[in-house]
C-alpha cells in the first residue's frame, strides 16, 4: 500500500501506523459512561469506504485522516488531522 501524505508525498505503508475508525468522536467530559463505552468499544466495521486514523510515525509524525475502501484497500482521500499543521490555523 502507498499513502500520499499531504505533507511528505507518496510513501510506503511501512512508514505508517494504523489506529482505526476516525468516525467516533471523543465524547464531552460530561457525556457519561454509555457514550464513552460506545466511543471506545463499538465499531461500524464498514465493508467499504471508511474514514480512518493513520500516523505517519516513520515520517513527519502527522496524524492523518484517510478515506479507504476496506474491500479493495483503495485510498480515495488523505487529509491531515485537525492539529497537524496547526501553525497555519487562522493564517
Amino acid at each position, binding site marked *: 500500500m502507498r499513502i500520499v501524505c499531504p505533507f511528505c508525498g507518496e510513501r510506503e505503508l511501512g512508514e505508517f501506523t494504523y489506529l482505526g475508525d476516525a468516525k467516533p468522536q471523543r465524547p464531552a467530559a460530561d457525556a457519561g459512561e454509555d457514550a464513552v463505552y460506545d466511543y471506545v468499544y463499538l465499531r461500524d466495521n464498514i465493508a467499504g469506504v471508511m474514514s480512518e486514523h493513520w500516523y505517519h510515525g516513520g*515520517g513527519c509524525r502527522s496524524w492523518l485522516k484517510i478515506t479507504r475502501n476496506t474491500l479493495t484497500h483503495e485510498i480515495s482521500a488523505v487529509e491531515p488531522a485537525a492539529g497537524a499543521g496547526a501553525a497555519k490555523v487562522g493564517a
Partner: protein
Amino acid sequence: MVEFSWVVRSPLEHALVAGPYGASGEAGVSLTEIRNFDLIQVMARRGKATEVATAAKARLGVAAPETPKAVQTSDAALIWSGPDQFLVLSKGGKHAINQLSQAFASSASLSDQSHARALISISGAKARAVLAKLSSIDLHPDAFPVGAAAATSMDHTSVTLWRGDDGLNGQAVFNVLVFATFAESLWHTMLDSAAEYGVAISHSEEF
C-alpha cells in the same frame, strides 16, 4: 579537586573505521560521517506560521522550507522535518539554540537536537544503488533533485534525508541524519548494503 576534560564522542566513533571496505577496486560509494554540529528543531506555534517565516528570513536570511526541501545558506542548512517545523543545521555555534532562541521567542518552540543525531553523507557512482536497499523513496534525479528532503525511515529507523549540492565530480550527494542511539546499527546496515560496490569510509568535521 579533579580537573575534567569533556571530550565529545561521536555516536559512530566506535564503529567507523576510516579506509576502504568491501569489494576491492575503485570504491563505488563514499560514506562520510560529519562530526560535531549544531542542530536545532524549530516548531512553529499554533497560528504562527507567518511569524516563523519572517523570523527565519530575518535571522537566517532565507525563508524556512514549507515543503520537503533543504535550503542552504552560507553558514547553515534549513531542512524541512514535518509540517510547521524544520531543522537548522550549522557548525561553530553561530546558530546554536541560545543563539536562535531570541529570534523565534514568540513564534516557535525550539528543541536542541545537536547531540541526538549522527550525520552521514553518501556519495559515489553507486550511492543510489545503496540507498535503494535502505530507502523506499524514489531517488531518481527527476524525483529527488538537489535540495529535495524527506522525513522518512531507513531500515525501520527514522531519518532525515536530503540531497545536497552535487560533488565536484558531478555526482549526487545524499545526507542522512539518524538518531544517535540507532547510528551504529544503521551504519552496519549501510556497510553491508554497500560492500559489494566497494566503500571509501571517512569522517570529517566539515560539511
